[in-house]
């Protein structure tokens, strides 16, 4: 049986991100039940929305996995879980947001191996540059998460830098050639706008009470 290293690396990245989120949640004082059920729900949400986003955007003509769709699924699962459990919701949401760049960063190594999502960043292949960038975002966010009392600061930091990096580095991809702005950049800007809106109006949102 020939094993595709691409799949191994992608799954490893997702698994590492899940482990990271569970560890950070546990360190923040969440109950084991909350951590388990959030991870369980997020597996389904990440996978479903990753596949559905490709189906929806292609009008039902293509099947595949989308990183942005998976990220949206992860956030949806985490928010739903925070409302169901009501157990340290800020720490729960933050631990998953902080771990998302790790999943994306490691998954980009799979693209480097497969040769897809290619491009050049000042004569360097773009995939490892993206990978290193997002793993660095993850490390910085975890440090802020551990040191800060308000865990959401780490989440906002991770989101803002991730959106800027994702949109900025897209200019160096081959798929951007001849275009002013790509579909992925538009989606990232929309997602970043939503995140910014949540941050600005966070006091008025019906967020679960701690």
């Amino acid at each position: 049986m020939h094993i595709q290293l691409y799949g191994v690396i992608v799954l490893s990245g997702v698994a590492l991100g899940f482990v990271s989120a569970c560890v950070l949640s546990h360190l923040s004082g969440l109950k084991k039940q909350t951590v388990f059920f959030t991870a369980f729900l997020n597996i389904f949400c990440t996978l479903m929305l990753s596949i559905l986003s490709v189906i929806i955007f292609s009008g039902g003509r293509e099947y595949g996995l989308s990183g942005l769709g998976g990220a949206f699924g992860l956030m949806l699962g985490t928010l739903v879980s925070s409302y169901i459990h009501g157990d340290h919701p800020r720490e729960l949401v933050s631990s998953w947001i902080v771990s998302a760049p790790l999943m994306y960063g490691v998954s980009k190594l799979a693209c480097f191996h497969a040769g897809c999502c290619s491009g050049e960043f000042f004569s360097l292949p773009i995939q490892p540059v993206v990978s290193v960038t997002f793993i660095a975002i993850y490390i910085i966010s975890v440090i802020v998460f551990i040191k800060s009392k308000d865990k959401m600061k780490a989440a906002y930091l991770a989101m803002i830098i991730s959106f800027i990096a994702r949109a900025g580095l897209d200019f160096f991809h081959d798929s951007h050639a001849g275009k002013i702005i790509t579909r992925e950049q538009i989606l990232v800007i929309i997602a970043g706008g939503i995140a910014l809106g949540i941050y600005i109006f966070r006091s008025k949102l019906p967020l679960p009470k701690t």
Partner: protein
Amino acid sequence: MSDLNKQDWVCGKCGTLNSEGNFCCECGEPKPATPAVPVVPAPQAAPKEAPKESEEDKKNANLLCIFSLLCMFAAPGIAGIVMKVAEVIFYGGLEGIVTTICGTFAGFGWIAGIVLMIMVRVKYKDNTFGKVLMWLYIALAIIAVIIGMIVLFTVIACLNECNRGMW
């Protein structure tokens, strides 16, 4: 020694329980004429255990579990039937739109099924139906992950999707 001296008595001054003698062994207070008899507390009745799950809770939990099963299994089934019917009626002409709608319906149905099960486990911890449902979904998830890993590791189609710039 009189029989009275052999009875336990409580000292009126320091409260020490004395078993014999006419003077308190602790403070020396003489034994009163009518010694206070140590009061033995009445045995407490064993506290009744609060009922673990009320009938109303059980009913609500079971209802949520049934909805969860419907979302998990009936939704994809309905989506599949609709796709087949649409294929026959429209001769595959609206395949893209139908696939999108049915796929979205089935996908969110699965997510809703999981969410309802988690709500039952969090809110009605002692519900048996909820516990069974949880283990059923965990088993299904493990099987799905194993099948997914086999497919992902061995099928080249995933690599082709990546080459089209989906990531």
